[in-house]
């Protein structure tokens, strides 16, 4: 007798959802930290450093996320580290997020009018104060819609952890679908869960984008 899609199965999906949220948070926090470093290196003014970070970003933007996960997952295994699946995929998503957030923030830093940096230099502020007090606060504001947009991408992207066998929402959906033989219902519910997670963020991001573009028109 095969189980029907009931409360127990729904609870299993909810636990998968928890892992999706946790994975997203870890990758986002880690990606923000490393991404800030990437963005600062990319705008530091040294030609060779900027080139290397550009290549770093280009590699992540020019290859599929799935393959990046495979490389990290199997690559870490080769080093002899006994990591469980969560740590491996979390590292993969963090590195990926650092490249994408780095690119978003590089653009935002460069979008801050040059006069601001020049004025800060004229005031005798050194690099760290110039960045922390003048440039970054403005850059963060400019980059917020794109950053939220990337967060939505990241939530959707974590579904790929299912393919390397980590049980998050999409993998939980596969398992329940195989148990109950009700794939349409199960994947419909899984899709709805992702939608409920992502749609408010998308809406928030696009509203903020509209507000920012209005502000810049004035």
């Amino acid at each position: 007798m095969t189980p029907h899609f009931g409360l127990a199965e729904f609870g299993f999906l909810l636990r998968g959802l928890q892992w999706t949220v946790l994975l997203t948070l870890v990758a986002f926090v880690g990606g923000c930290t490393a991404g800030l470093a990437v963005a600062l290196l990319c705008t530091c003014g040294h030609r060779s450093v900027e080139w290397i970070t550009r290549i770093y970003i280009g590699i992540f933007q020019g290859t599929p996320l799935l393959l990046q996960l495979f490389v990290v997952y199997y690559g870490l295994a080769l080093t002899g580290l006994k990591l469980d699946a969560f740590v491996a995929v979390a590292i993969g998503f963090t590195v990926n997020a650092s490249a994408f957030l780095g690119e978003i923030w590089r653009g935002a830093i460069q979008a801050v009018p040059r006069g601001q940096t020049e004025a800060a230099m004229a005031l005798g502020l050194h690099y760290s104060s110039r960045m922390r007090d003048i440039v970054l606060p403005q850059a963060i504001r400019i980059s917020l819609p794109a950053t939220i947009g990337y967060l939505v991408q990241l939530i959707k992207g974590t579904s790929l952890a299912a393919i390397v066998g980590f049980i998050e929402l999409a993998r939980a959906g596969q398992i329940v679908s195989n148990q109950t033989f009700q794939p349409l219902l199960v994947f419909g519910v899984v899709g709805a869960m992702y939608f409920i997670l992502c749609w408010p963020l998308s809406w928030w991001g696009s509203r903020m984008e509209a507000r920012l573009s209005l502000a810049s028109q004035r």
Partner: protein
Amino acid sequence: MGYTLDFSVVWHAMPALLWGCVGTLGLALAGMTLAMMIGVAGVAARDSKVAWLRATIIGFVEVVRNTPFLVQIFFLFFALPLVGLKLNPTATAIIALGVNGGAYAIEIIRGGVQSIHKGQIEAGYALGLHKGQVFRFIVLKPALRAIYPSLTGQFIMLTLTSSICSAVSAYELTSVAQRIESDTFRSFEVYFSVTFLYLAISWLLMLGFAVVSHRFFSYPTR
């Protein structure tokens, strides 16, 4: 750890991998063609006067853009047979890529159409151009120029997304890589090399698109 990297398996498998690249490009091309058709039809339907049609298109775009491609392809993989479409995995993958890309194409094309000011069209008529000329010179070319970067970017994204179609074992580069991996157990070497094949594909596409853009969409400066 006594593991030594051995890339010779990749070298031996290169012909199969290159055919996988062809499969990936074919999948992306077919998917993008379908996406463009959905995009154009969707834009027309989204600006129609029928309220429920507009709502359907907006709903479609929001749902597709806020759910993962993996879940979409699984859903289609099981749903299509129910509506009488008994398709092989590759055809299913093309439909999934087309539906996914179509939602993004609707937004991109709509942005391009909206970027043409009404005054431009009126100015065209005032200059004595007839309808076809106004469409060709004032609407179509500037709109194409406006959407070209996002549309080609979307195409590259679609090419990379097609790797997920290996989950329903469509024929493309990643599924070929998975087969080689399960034959040789050289996971890292195979996936590492295949990642660079994807990088080569997307860089070549980018280069090609830039050449086309330079040839057809650069503003005449003379």
